[in-house]
């Protein structure tokens, strides 16, 4: 990707691995979950890059690694030209003025004991910035700008609906006029009508302040609405990245094809006519033991022998259109109805992709054991032949 210094965000070969420990008498590191494995991307001012993927693709971990909320294992992250991977928490403080984050669940991301005013005031206080006209005036203006009633300054987050809470989160994020906002599934918890309001708000703010968005989402239609460019992730790697028009009209990676064809369209006539639907079978393979060669090959209708041996590099097939595939395929060449039957067969060798060792994103984000109420409940590997004794468990990464 480009290496211009003008980029707001420049990520090169980002890798975030979580150690996997064995369960013997003496636990030792026996491998790593490569949650993010060699991701490179860049963002210009005022641009939106959509980062798309299923759960377990590593998109959320990538987003958090970029803001050093999860420390990456390797690679480089430059924000506004400054390398930040080696910075201590204290030295990151000035960077946080430039790069902010919006979360999926606005409720969990807001302190329930703080008033809306206090929440939006916090960035000014922490960074010791006083906007023209004073902090209070600045906060009231922000509230107005994101569509909150300034009279609600003294209310608490629980008095607001989901959409309004997301507006609070947005006001907090834009308070210091950052150059970059990482949005982690910002609308997926919201109702349809509210979702559209928030998307419009984000777009307006971008135009007004020239903010760059890294927009992480699983909903392809939403991403299409807001992004200038789109990157598709699968099992920690970028499969395809291209300008929006290209990726939706001329996708080349088989995975992108299957993602696009799986999205239901709210039009019964078109649904009925859509014959060339690619149905992916099985689930994401385990990120602890990803397939050799191309990580997507176990579910790919294009897969051939070469895919098991050689990792396909991300190459530029058209201007700005990068694809990591040995056998890219254009829309018009798609088979009428592509399916991969092998994976549903009761062949124990092929059956494992359906089972996951870890609960996807959760584990990749290091929240191993969060699934259970029990003390230290952990996800179990139901590996081949039920050999559970020497399985693996995930350890919390340093966060």
């Amino acid at each position, binding site marked *: 990707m480009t290496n211009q210094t003008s980029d707001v965000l420049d990520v090169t070969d980002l890798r975030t691995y979580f150690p996997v420990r064995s369960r013997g008498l003496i636990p030792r590191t026996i491998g790593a979950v490569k949650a993010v494995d060699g991701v490179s991307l860049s963002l210009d001012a005022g641009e939106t890059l959509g980062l798309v993927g*299923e*759960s377990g693709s590593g998109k959320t971990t990538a987003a958090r690694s970029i803001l050093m909320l999860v420390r990456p294992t390797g690679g480089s992250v430059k924000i506004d030209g400054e390398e930040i991977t080696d910075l201590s928490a204290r030295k990151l403080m000035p960077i946080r003025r430039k790069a902010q984050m919006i979360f999926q669940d606005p409720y969990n991301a807001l302190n329930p004991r703080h008033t809306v005013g206090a929440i939006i005031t916090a960035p000014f206080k922490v960074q010791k910035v006083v906007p023209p006209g004073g902090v209070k005036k600045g906060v009231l203006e922000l509230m107005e700008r994101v569509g909150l009633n300034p009279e609600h300054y003294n209310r608490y987050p629980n008095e607001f*609906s*989901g959409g309004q809470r997301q507006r609070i989160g947005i006001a907090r994020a834009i308070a210091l006029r950052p150059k970059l906002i990482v949005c982690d599934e910002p609308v997926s918890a919201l*109702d*349809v*009508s*509210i*979702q*559209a*309001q928030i*998307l*419009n708000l984000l*777009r307006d703010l971008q135009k007004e302040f020239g903010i760059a968005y890294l927009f992480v989402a*699983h*909903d392809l*239609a*939403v991403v*299409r*609405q807001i992004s200038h460019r789109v990157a598709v992730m699968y099992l920690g790697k970028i499969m395809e990245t291209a300008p929006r*028009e290209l990726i*939706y009209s001329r996708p080349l990676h088989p995975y992108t094809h*299957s*993602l*696009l064809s*799986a*999205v*239901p*369209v*709210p*039009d*019964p*006539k*078109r*649904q009925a006519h859509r014959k060339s*639907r690619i*149905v*992916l*079978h*099985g*689930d*994401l393979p385990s990120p602890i033991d990803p397939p050799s060669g191309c990580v997507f090959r176990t579910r790919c209708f294009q897969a051939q022998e070469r895919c098991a041996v050689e990792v396909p590099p991300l190459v530029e097939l058209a201007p700005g259109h990068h694809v990591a595939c040995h056998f890219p395929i254009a829309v018009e060449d798609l088979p009428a109805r592509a399916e991969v039957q092998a*994976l*549903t067969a*009761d062949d*124990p060798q092929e*059956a494992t992709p*359906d*089972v*996951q060792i870890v*609960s*996807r994103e959760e584990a990749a984000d290091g929240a191993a054991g969060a*699934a*259970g109420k029990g003390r230290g*409940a952990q*996800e*179990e*590997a*139901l590996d081949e032949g*039920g050999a559970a004794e020497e399985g693996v468990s995930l350890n919390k990464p340093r966060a």
Partner: protein
Amino acid sequence: MTATSEEPLSGMPIVGSADRPFLSVNDLHVTFPTEDGLVQAVDGVSLSVERGKTLAIVGESGSGKSVTAQAIMGLVNRKSATVTGEIWLDGQELINLPQREVQELMGMEIAMIFQDPMSSLHPFYRIGDQIVEAIRAHRSIGKAAARRETLEMLQHVGIPAAERRIDAYPHQLSGGMRQRVMIAMALINSPQLLIADEPTTALDVTVQAQILELIARLQGEFGTTVILITHDLGIVADVADDVAVMYGGRIVELASTTTLYDLPEMPYTLGLLSSVPRMDQKLPERLDPIRGNPPSPIRLPKGCVFQPRCDYWQRVPGEACLTVRPDLLESDPDHWVRCHLKVEERKQIARDVKQILAGGGE
């Protein structure tokens, strides 16, 4: 069928042409007492489904769609909520049925699958045992036979290496696999009615496609009637025969899927359809969302519940939208709409909006 007294309907909204619907709900009310007063979660819902068909109930959070489904299923806790109205399933009324008989129907005649397959399966029991329990709750067959049947069903819903997975615990399976287990458990007693409450919301889009295909396939095989609760208009277009749109505890529009997507008449439906970012149309510069927020179920507007968010209420002469609750009326055969606007006006609005949507953007 008895006619409801408040509504000037000759019968109930019956979509489709069958003489006697398989399931019909008549003037269903569900009321919860809360600290802030009574909440009318469901306020006079009437609908019907033909045998073997799929009815989708669409709505946003708080619209009452899930409570409606749970009321049909018999899952609304009668200790804390009041349920009135009639629910007829294949000639049998359910609301006034004794609890014992309701239990006999649940899991046997009516089954349900839920949004989150992880939390819906008991974490302490093996999936096979949980399905066996569902069989033996209704049929007196031996454990070995029930287990054989379970294994067959697990294979049938596409669980690879089912003979091994049958002894797995839920946390050992992926989200998609867990939802397949839930489906296997729901269909194990060949119920006539399957209620699917947001069955794919927690799943990835590729897995979502698999699960929807599975439900459609099994529906074809077993002749099951399906009620699909969802907020996703894309899924509805994909699988439903008829759609009921709910807002503020009421059905605001009820039609066949093609009719509803072709020419939605209720401004709310129209707003929903134009709020969704779509992959099949030109990209609009901005989305055209419904403004404002859904109403609080405790303080519903006096007139039309949608009026505060409606762009067209001023076209209705007088103040009807502010003061009078509109009724659900038949605007065309099998197309029911709850709106004060004149039919012709509504149709014109829908045509105009669709025109803009289709032509907008890049």
